[in-house]
């Protein structure tokens, strides 16, 4: 109370903000709700908090069914950027990964996410998966919760979003396209040919990511590549890349803008 009133008296605005931030950090909420940046100014500039906001629901949607591995890879890449510490809960339901099998520990490892951090929760159906995600979020235990589930109705997405907001945890949801939700961002991910090293071998995975929807932000589209050793995203050298010549990029960009408006 006393510190709050002191902060109020100080005329300098930056000081007030700094003081409030410090107070919030003491409450133990803001420290966890910090955003998860891509580390790429180009993309982070489109997002209101300079990264994926904590305490919110973010959606990742595969471009086509066969892009589910790429979309999941994007989720794993983002999760690997969370600083080490608390575990990461990965909740799956039978219809989520469909016929793609199961997440492979060595595969997570080679994408830079330490499998020892991951706790896999296999729910027998979608309802139980929603419950498990909510329970994990409300407990405040995990650093982030990722869900790979089938259909999700609007009300369920609201519940999850609120649960994430209560403890400031990041919630990433991989789900089929074409459903309404309260997610603050929606990313559409498609596979694209990987970056080669100087010997012509596949070096870094590349994904075509499209920020379709972003509350208080700007949509956009990029081709990113991910370095699993340093956990760094970088933009693909666009003009040198043959996939860029498909000329769909600019077109889709305009399309995304139109939808967001």
């Amino acid at each position, binding site marked *: 109370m006393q510190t709050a009133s002191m902060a109020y008296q100080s005329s300098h605005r930056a000081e007030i903000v700094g003081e409030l931030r410090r107070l919030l950090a003491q409450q133990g909420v803001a420290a966890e709700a910090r955003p998860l940046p891509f580390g790429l100014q180009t993309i982070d500039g489109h997002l209101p908090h300079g990264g994926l906001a904590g305490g919110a629901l973010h959606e990742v949607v595969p471009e086509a069914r*066969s892009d589910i591995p790429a979309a999941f890879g994007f989720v794993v890449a983002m999760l690997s950027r969370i600083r080490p510490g608390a575990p990461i809960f990965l909740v799956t339901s039978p219809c989520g990964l469909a016929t793609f099998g199961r997440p492979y*520990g*060595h*595969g997570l*490892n080679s994408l830079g996410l330490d499998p020892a951090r991951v706790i896999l929760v296999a729910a027998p159906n979608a309802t139980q998966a929603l419950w498990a995600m909510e329970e994990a979020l409300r407990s405040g235990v995990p650093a982030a919760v990722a869900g790979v589930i089938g259909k999700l109705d609007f009300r369920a997405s609201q519940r999850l979003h609120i649960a994430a907001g209560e403890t400031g945890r990041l919630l990433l949801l991989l789900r089929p396209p074409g459903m309404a939700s309260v997610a603050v961002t929606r990313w559409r991910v498609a596979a694209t040919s990987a970056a080669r090293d100087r010997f012509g071998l596949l070096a870094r995975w590349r994904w075509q990511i499209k920020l379709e929807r972003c509350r208080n932000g700007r949509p956009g589209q990029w081709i990113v590549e991910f370095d699993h050793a340093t956990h760094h995203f970088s933009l693909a050298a666009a003009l040198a890349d043959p996939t860029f010549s498909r000329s769909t990029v600019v077109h889709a960009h305009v399309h995304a803008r139109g939808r967001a408006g």
Partner: protein
Amino acid sequence: MVEAAGGPRIAALNEAAYAEGLAVHDLLADARAKVTTLQVRPADPTADDAALRRLALWATRYTPTVSPWGEQNGADGFFLDVAGASHLFGGEETLLADLISRLDRFGLPARLAIADTAGAAWALSRFHPDDVAILPSGQEAEALAPLPVAALRLSPDTSATLRRLGFKRIGSLIDKPRAPFAARFESELLTRLDQALGRAAEPLALIAPPPVYHSLRYLMEPIFSQEAIVAVATRLMKDLVHALVRHGVGARALRLALYRVDGEVTTIDVSLTMPTRDPAHVTRLFDLKLERIAEAVEFGFGFEALGLAATIVEPMEPTQTDLAPSADGHNAEACAALVDRLQQRLGPRSVRRLAPVASHLPERAEMAVTDAIPAWPAPQAARPLFLLPHAEPADVLALVPEGPPQRFRWRGVMHDVAHAQGPERIASEWWRSSQPTRDYYLVEDDDGRRFWLYREGLYERETNAPRWFVQGLFA
């Protein structure tokens, strides 16, 4: 009725038959001659045994140390070790009165006896003139003396020999010189005599190992709802916590026993990732578990008593109760509590971690575990993000049989290979089965999707027609 030498004999009788003067072991033919209206059923020892076990399980509502009688004891009753339990019921007389009235309500006439030794109690329950007998401490010899030698639980041969020699009463055996008996009879006779008199210990085979930490509550009114069960379980756990704290341990596994009014007993087990003493956490787990098995629990006329036992305990640091996260932002206890909750609701083996296994075969190189895991090695070669449940056959077009794939058809879709990287050769583990060698290729198709294919069998050395499989998918 039971088949025996010389024809079928009577195995058990009801009261009406006793009244007619029949006795166990009579020949059925004689009995039929005496009582023409006799109804006969074949004996079913297995069902009798199951019924006795059910009743013994019900009797754990009095004390956890219940031992149903085996073949030697006649297999028609059980021992209760009420030492330390009778005061909870206001004394031994009240306990016996309560027990006999409840058994009576089940329609089971019973004979009960309390004595310092199991042997004496058995003898009194069989041969005492009253249905209920309580023998004060130290009077075994006087009480047993007038009883027949059969009251010592001897084998039929030994009792027959004793009778032939003129030993009719136990009194004539007590205080006789031991050496002649030891020389002439099996060790059984003296052992049984010593056990009945408390000179030798008699181990009881208990229906369930007695828990060290156990608490029990009898309810004024039977309860019907899940909420009520959970509320009582909370109180039971609070009772247990004192003992757990005193000994510096926490529960790793708990068993909740629900005693139904009609004598059925339902037990619910939960196990925990880390030892706990938190009543709120424990009852939440029972709540979730009850929700999951709701159909399996019959409420019937309600439950009249609940017992909670810590079946596995482990040492526990006294200061694990604070919920503040440690320096790295990770709170191991809160995490264990969350995992427990998820597991109770979603079922066993639903919450797992992945542990590396030292195997070259990709499908054997990891396993799902539920407890602590070793550190993962640094990634070596590229591995797919998804591993298919089973490697799926693919039709592959390659320029040469031992070359990389050019095109392949998998799940009905044709993929043109833009880039193939490999082979990475993984030989079978010779100590298992003799599977062919696999050559793995990382393949990227025209659309940028990445697959993990392998060719099974070395061309011309192991097979002439190598087969191709898709085993995994890269991000």
